[in-house]
């Protein structure tokens, strides 16, 4: 495995001017537009498309065998949510969907500032499932331009 090019990370930090850093990552949306966009017919036994939610952990997974590499999931994520799903450059199959590191997220463990925590979130958070540009715009307005 590689050592540290953040362009390959599931968490990508986008920096803005005035300074706001937004860590962007898959938020495992409750209504999962990515799964909805998956055109693969549900398996008659499990009811799963190629992209499906693991009911036990809540994580969204991709069945690589059945995945067509059409990129619909990435497109849905980009258009409707945060744009965290990035297709593999060769197979075009979705990557960087958060798997919560088997219940012990490394990003939370390694954040030196304790800024990240692993908690159950709701769909109603202020910045829930917003793309980095939109969060940055809100924060810049809040922090830097409120006095202007």
């Amino acid at each position: 495995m590689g050592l540290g090019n953040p362009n390959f990370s599931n968490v990508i930090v986008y920096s803005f001017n005035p300074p706001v850093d937004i860590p962007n990552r898959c938020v495992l949306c409750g209504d999962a537009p990515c799964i909805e966009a998956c055109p693969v017919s549900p398996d008659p036994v499990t009811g799963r498309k190629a992209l499906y939610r693991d009911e036990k952990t809540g994580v969204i997974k991709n069945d690589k065998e059945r995945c067509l590499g059409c990129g619909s999931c990435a497109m849905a994520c980009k258009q409707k949510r945060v744009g965290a799903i990035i297709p593999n450059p060769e197979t075009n199959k979705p990557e960087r969907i958060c798997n919560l590191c088997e219940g012990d997220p490394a990003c939370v463990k390694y954040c030196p500032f304790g800024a990240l925590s692993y908690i159950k979130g709701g769909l109603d958070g202020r910045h829930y499932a917003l793309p980095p540009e939109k969060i940055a715009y809100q924060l810049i307005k809040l922090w830097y331009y409120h006095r202007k």
Partner: protein
Amino acid sequence: MTILGYYGKILEVDLTKEKISILSLSEEDTYKFIGGRGLGVKILWDKVKKPGLDPLSPENPLIFMPGPFSGFPIPSASRVCIITKSPLTSPIKSKYKFASTLTYSNMGGFLGPEIRFAGYDGIVIIGKAVSPVYLYINDDKVEIRDAKKFWGMKTNEFDKAIIDELGDRRFKTCYIGPAGENLVRYASILHTSARGAGRGGVGCVMGSKKLKAIVIKGSKMPEVADHERFINVLEEIRKSFKNYSRLQRWRRYGTAAALISSSDAGSQAVKNYREGTFLEVDKIGGIAAEQKLWIRDYACYCCPLACHKAGVVRSGPYAGIHHDGPEYETGTMLGANLLVSDLYGLMKEIAEVDDYGLDQISTGNVIGFLMEAYEKGYIDLKFLDGIDLKWGNVEAILAFIKKIAYREGVGDLASKGVKALSSKIGKDSYKFAIHCKGQELAAWNVHVSLTQALCYATSNRGACHLNGHSIRSQNFAAATDSTGHCRFATGGFGKNGIFELLSSITGHDWNRKIFEKTGERIFNLEKCFNYREGFRREDDVLPPRFFEEPLTIGPKKGAVLKYEDFEKIMDNYYKERGWNMKTTKPSKEKLYELGLEFAWNEIKG
């Protein structure tokens, strides 16, 4: 041949020939000079074969060097060192018209790691473009692109405009402002609109090449020699940082913590270095800024310190301005040194200096000198083009900063630095022209510390506060500047963390002794470069102010240095360095011991 821990590749761009090529590194050089400042100086040495090269000529290389730590998730490994021949410095006498020192200027942020992600151990720019260009690097795709529409743009605006142009926020960028374009001798190179490589005129050299910016993005990763060992060492270092005693101080105040402590110690540059204590420092110190200015802490790549403080002016004529600072250097040079105690006004000055792309330190020093000359009647309002440069006058300071950046009227002379100003103004103004070898001193004052005097006087890039107060610390610092990690974080690595990392990355056995020896090698090569240009012992001096005018206020009232003490400490310094005491020429024995035979051949004369 592969060199473990490195790509072995330097990207070389010739702007005159519009030619892009790869310069191969030798394993000998990477081992002997590490990377960053050290390897950059070696490349400079190889490229500049003769003394007296005009720093603004196309032949002067502008070298961007990350280090072997860059591109790994090592705490604070965010730095990039920019090395070139300085357009700011000069010796007292030399047979070469364009004699100057080399310079190395270092900045944090995200650029250093990204150079390594793109697959290079460094970038060398030579030549000169016909019209303004910027350099586009996306892994192996390297292009020289037209930048006419960006020429003249200030840095904050450009920082946003270039991302719009590229349409990809993941590009890391560095660029010059109007000051660099107009060849102000102490122009800086900016990154993220607030981080800068300011010292020695690296932005001026970039401007002389008509290079507005470098944009870079990469999808590669450097490899380490021993992966398992590296991961283990990294875990140890992460733990060590958690227990680093100064971590919380860095995180809360950054260098701004020193504004008050240094003032209390009589070691702050106040009123053009006339005093060491600023009676109104509480108004601009870290605590005031925390209450009235700062919004968030920001970290450079992988850094747990986050010493960058972003602030916004809340009220008054400058309301709405956002920028980082004041830090110790910016708050002292444009605050205490000019008797500015208006925190919001100071913030405006700092933002403007960065926006034009000037060095914060030299700019504050130059204006401080003119304020004193004006107060003493050596110059009048006419000389200053009607700008009333009285102590603490923020509006006048702002007007003058603009003059410098565009080299308008008196700004043209002021753009050449305090040494040039002093020789024009004449009389005994040299006594308070606070520079060494033509580079302005930084925010640490000298009266109270003999080793601070040594630090400034013996620096190879002209006055430098980061040079080190002893031979050992100078050597250690030179090696530290070569790995890619940050000086401020050195204490967090634990006793052997840095050497363990270097060993696991490069496969060579590193320890403190070898590390310091390497630093000594780098320092001596720099010295040889300067010696060849004509710098001698008479250049290793500081202005009379520190020896003849004792401090008159503060807890260190009465403090002053003695000439004989300075001479003595310098005698010992050269002796211990293995350099000739009269000429400062490094000895053959020393250079051979360090494996610098090639440098001896150049200076033996």
